[in-house]
């Protein structure tokens, strides 16, 4: 575990250095494109955490084992943090490039709804005391909300484009990516994903050690 942590730290440090020194300013964005190297990995992980949470919930319902419920909850807690970071970094990026913090473009809306789902899931968990019930009910909610996300992904672009003009820029992905940018981005995504996995396994292990009485997630 320690070895993995130190390896990861070195990797992420390398990514940060690459972003600061290697990435040339992008067209029209200038140095602001660097925020995208933080925003995109973090947004990706917040979606991944949701997938993991929903999958663990499904496994819990099938097997009724607490470790899956634990994984689902831990993933959701990490996911909400990453999601907050993604929302804030996205809003800052939007302000710097388009002049407004929030304008309901499809990606912002999706991240916002993800935040709502995480919030609802965690609120539900904290509202039920009995452990078995809490595990089963929150698992059902995780699956139900997972089911509706594809619908959301379909409807939002339609709504947005019917009500708003085409945005100037969706993300740095639309900008012609030089290979250097692409590699650094992939490295960043990989690094942050590994960070998420490390944090997840640590929190699941920690939750497993504590006696059940103190488990309040």
């Amino acid at each position, binding site marked *: 575990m320690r070895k993995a942590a130190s390896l990861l730290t070195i990797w992420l440090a390398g990514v940060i250095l690459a972003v600061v020194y290697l990435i040339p300013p992008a067209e029209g964005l200038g140095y602001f494109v660097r925020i995208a190297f933080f925003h995109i990995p973090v947004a990706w992980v917040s979606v991944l955490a949701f997938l993991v949470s929903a999958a663990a919930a499904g496994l819990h319902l099938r097997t009724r084992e607490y470790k899956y419920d634990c994984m689902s909850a831990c993933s959701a807690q990490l996911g909400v943090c990453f999601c907050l970071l993604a929302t804030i970094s996205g809003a800052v990026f939007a302000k710097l490039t388009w002049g407004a913090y929030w304008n309901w473009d499809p990606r912002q809306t999706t991240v916002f709804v993800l935040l*709502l789902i995480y919030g609802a899931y965690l609120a*539900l968990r904290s509202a039920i*005391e009995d452990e078995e019930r809490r595990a*089963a009910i929150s698992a059902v909610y995780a699956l139900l909300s997972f*089911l509706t996300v594809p619908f*959301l992904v379909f*409807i939002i672009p339609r709504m947005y484009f019917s009500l708003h003009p085409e945005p100037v820029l969706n993300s740095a992905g639309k900008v012609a990516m030089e290979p250097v940018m692409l590699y650094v981005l992939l490295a960043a995504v990989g690094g942050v994903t590994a960070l998420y996995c490390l944090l997840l396994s640590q929190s699941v292990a920690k939750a497993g050690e504590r006696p059940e009485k103190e488990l309040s997630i």
Partner: protein
Amino acid sequence: MARVPLLSSNAVWAVFTKEAVCESRTKYAVGALVMFALTALSSVSLAIAGVSLAPELAAALLWIVLFFCAMAGLARVFVQEQEAGTLLGLRLYATGQAVFWGKLLFNLVLLLGLTGIVAPLFTVFFGIEIWYWLPFVIVLLLGCVGMAAVATLTAAMVMYAQGKHAIFTVLTFPVLLPQFLSAINLTAKILSEDMPELSELMFMAGYDAAVVAAGILLFDYLWQE
């Protein structure tokens, strides 16, 4: 002496009539719903004093009122069972599927009845002309089915939670959001004298089917220990 009861329309109908009879005798939910709708619509209408609303705004207002009416009244089907002490008996004697379908149908009928009051009032208060009645009714119907289905499921989730009513809204909104947005979008189209496309209506129907299917699969996990 006894046999394992399969899901029968008898049982579903029994749950539905029981809900209807209890509600008609206590008028627990209906009063709250109608009062909320009246208050919301009349206060906005008074405040804007005859100025016409943009179609998107009017559509959003209509669905917001329906949504909050649903939040005020649809949790009752499970929360009241829990509070009155009849939940244990129901879990013992009834199958999960019968309870789910019976309560879903009741919530749907309640919501449709409410919509039948709210929609005409809405057109009256805001001076709105609806050219395409049939699509409007279809959108209302599909939206209500979605709301009733999601609300029934989330009501079953908050049965055992603290602060049931607050968390009921918090849980329902993100799950219902795609249908909510579709409904507002299509209603705005209709109010702008534009016909909604068939694919958009199919999308709403698809959402309803997906949520009801999810309910059938997941409800037993909420119902049984």
